[in-house]
Structures are given as C-alpha cells and as structure tokens.
C-alpha cells in the first residue's frame, strides 16, 4: 500500500499549503496585473459583515428546530421505529442515530461517532461504518440554511429533496461498501 500512503501524504500536504499558497499567488498575480490589491481586498471584505448578519435568521430557524428535535429524544424513538428496515440492509441498529444525525448536526454526529468507536473499537465493523458515514456525509441542513440564507432565498425548490436523496445514497453506500470490504 505504498502508493496509497503516498497519495494520502500528497493530499494532506496539499491541504496544509493550499490556503497560504493561494493567497500568495492571488496577491502576486494581482500585482502583476496592476490591480490595486489593498483597495480591492478592502472593497471585497466589506461585504463580509453583511453576509454574516444576513444568515443569522436562517441559522436560528434551522438550528433551533434541530435543537428541539435532538433535546426531546426524538432521535432514539425514530431509531427504534426504523430498526427493522435498517437490519434488512445490513446496518447495525447502533449506526442508525449516526445516519440521522449526520445531516442535522456536525458536532452531534461527531459525538455519536466517538461514542460508538469508544464502545465498539475503531476497527470493529460498526466503528468503520460510522467512520465512513462521518467522512462521506455533510451537515446538509446547515449548508442549506446558510447558503440560501445568504441570498435571502426561501423557495428552495429541488435542492432539498435532491440533497436528501444524495445523503441517503451516501449512507447506503457507506453501509454497503463497509460490509463488502470488511464484512
């Protein structure tokens, strides 16, 4: 697995140097092209505050609803109700809260993942499964809230159903692949 390790090395190095290198390159390129870089930067950066403030109502709406759902204990009930279905596709019952938490809350999903890895071990089947779920998922509802919120869009059309379908496919693929390779 030498090539795999090499690949990982390259990618992780890239992710460390990417930001400084990008800023360096853009500033130099701008200077060569005779852009007044300092003024251009400030002009662009002015918008940062407005965007931050503009997404607040959308974030409050989304996160409070997720907070209510989590605090009330609905996740555990839903996991119990859905467990016959998940058993059919080879997903252990303990992994289901992870699948449901992933699109809702990043920190929540991280908590579920750490707990499962602590109880079952990182190299157990379920430990590997939640690792892949964590890595391949995204906090869909947070992204939806801030991206659409930043341009004040309320009618989200096909973005939500398609996003959820992609999430479900991601989860199913995680379960299937882990069972296939490590099962």
């Amino acid at each position, binding site marked *: 697995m030498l090539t795999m390790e090499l690949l990982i090395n390259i990618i992780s190095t890239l992710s460390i140097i990417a930001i400084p290198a990008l800023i360096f390159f853009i500033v130099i390129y701008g200077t060569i092209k005779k852009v007044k870089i300092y003024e251009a930067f400030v002009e662009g950066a002015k*918008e940062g505050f407005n965007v931050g403030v503009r997404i607040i109502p959308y974030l409050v709406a989304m*996160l409070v609803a997720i907070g209510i759902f989590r605090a009330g*204990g609905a996740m555990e009930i839903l996991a119990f109700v859905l467990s016959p279905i998940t058993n059919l596709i080879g997903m252990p019952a303990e992994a289901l809260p992870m699948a449901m938490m992933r699109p809702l809350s990043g920190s929540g999903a991280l908590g579920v993942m750490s707990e499962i890895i602590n109880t079952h071990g990182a190299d157990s089947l379920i430990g590997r499964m939640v690792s892949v779920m964590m890595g391949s998922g995204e906090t869909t509802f947070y992204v939806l809230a801030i991206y659409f919120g930043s341009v004040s869009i309320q009618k*989200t059309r096909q973005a939500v159903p398609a996003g959820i379908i992609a999430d479900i496919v991601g989860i199913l693929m*995680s379960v299937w692949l882990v069972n296939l390779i490590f099962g």
Partner: protein
Amino acid sequence: MLNYIWLSLIVIGILVAVLSDWWDISTNKYQNGEISTVSIRLSNNPTIPLDKSKKYPCTLIYSEELGIIQNAELLVGNEHSGVLHISVDENTPPLWREIFKAQKNNNYLLAHVKWESISGLKFPATMTFDPVKFVKLNKVTNEGIIKYAKIAVELAIGLIGIMALWLGIMKIAEQSGLVAKLAGMLKPITTRLFPDVPADHPAMGAMIMNISANMLGLANAATPLGLKAMEELNKLNKKIGTATDAMCTFLVINTSNVQLIPATVIAIRAASGSVNPTEILGLVIVATAISTVVGVITVKLMARLRIFKRQLS
C-alpha cells in the same frame, strides 16, 4: 419542502418530549412523593436542639446491603424536619443521578427529611426527593431552544472574519482576471453542470474554488467561497427569493461533496487506537463520488418536474 422539514422537526421534537414526560409522570419514574425510610448519621456530636442556621455534615444511609451510603449536608428546618444536600459521586445509584440532573442544582441532590427525635449521632428519618417533572420539556427549552438560538448567532458572527478575508481575496482574483481564467479552463465541465450560467461569469470561478476547497476539507475557505458563489448566482436570478436551477445543482454538489481527506475522522480513529486509521479513506472517496453523481442526476431530473419549473415563472 424546507417548510415541511422545519415543521416536522419542531412538531415531532416537542411531541416526543411531551409523550416521554407523560410516561415518566404516569410511571412515576423519578419517585416524586415517594417516602423511603433512611438513617442519618451526623459526623460531629450535635448540641440538641440543632441550630437552624447551620449546615451539619452527615452520612445518608439508604441501604447498607446495596451499599447506598452517601455523604450529605443537613439543613435543619425545624425540630422535626429539614433538607438534605446529598453529594453525588461514583457510588450514587443511576436513578438518583438522573433525579440530580433533572433537579438542576449544580452541586447536590436535594431531598426532604423528617424525623421523630434526635438522640445521638445516628437517627432514623423518612426521605422524599424534591419533585422532578417535565424533564424532557425542560431539556427542549434549555438545551434545544435557548442554547441553539445562541449557537446560531455565534456561528454567524464567527463567520464574519473569515468571510471578509475570502471575499477580499476573491475581489483581487476577480479584478486581476484570475477567476475568469480559471472558469475558462474548466469550461467543458462547468457549462454542462450549470448550463444557464455564462461560462465566464464570476459565479463559475467562485463555485470551482468552493468545490476544490471542499474536496481538500478546507471548511474555513469553502464556506465563504460558497457564499460568494451564491451571491454571484443570485445576480443571474430573475425571481428574487426563489432558487435557480444552478443554485440547486451547486447546493447538491456541496452537500454531497467529494472528500479527499476526512481529517477529523482519521484523527479520532488514530486517537482511539485504530491499527490503520486511514483505511476508510478509499471508501469515503468512493461513497462521496457515488452520492455526488446520484445527487447531480437527481437534481437535474427534478428540475424538469412541473412543480419545480412552475416556481420559476
């Protein structure tokens, strides 16, 4: 759609909380009003009658067989009753812990005690816990509603600085023609993904940079670049407040994004003693690649549905 999801999160969340509280009350899970017989042993020899203003360190003996013996402090109310502040430690029974958490006194478990007479160091008494009700609903209020409203604002405010940085950098890249150049390079792919966005539009550059940052797991750069892309896409929007096809496609690519390095996951696996923490990497890449492809196909097909098309006109 988001309306229904929002509605169901709130309604299901609150209903489940109400139902489980109702269940706890009807089965009296927290032993509200239940009287148990205990012994209290004072640590120091008391002067009788006990002083009302003083706290007496003592030991609560609930059951010697079960080993439920806890350190506590006795606050005397009158000659025959008082309040017990029980310190919670690793020997505390699980139910008591739950009652303690629900009582929300940060330092001790609260119980009311009554006794006939105190003659020596050790005397018998009856104990009832301070009543606990609506545990889940309380949690919904404090940990759900109030806490998350605060977190939302903290997140948004925290984003302002990094947002300003990337919007500034993007402005330089835009004015120097770099964004247009980048967009030109990836034209064959992007024009197919986003047919209604002109190939040299600034939105293209921002989207490409956002997707690249996402793939490298650079969340700090990805979000500002993504929001920048949304702003540019919105300039092409003919119906303000309604998402365009390009926005929906972009969002789906973003939420199902291909991850090359799930750094947090690898770190947690390594920390918990995995033999090979990175073994899941290949699976993550395959899983996200497939979910992205399916997501893009779905969002494109759905764009043709009449219910979504109608919203544009």
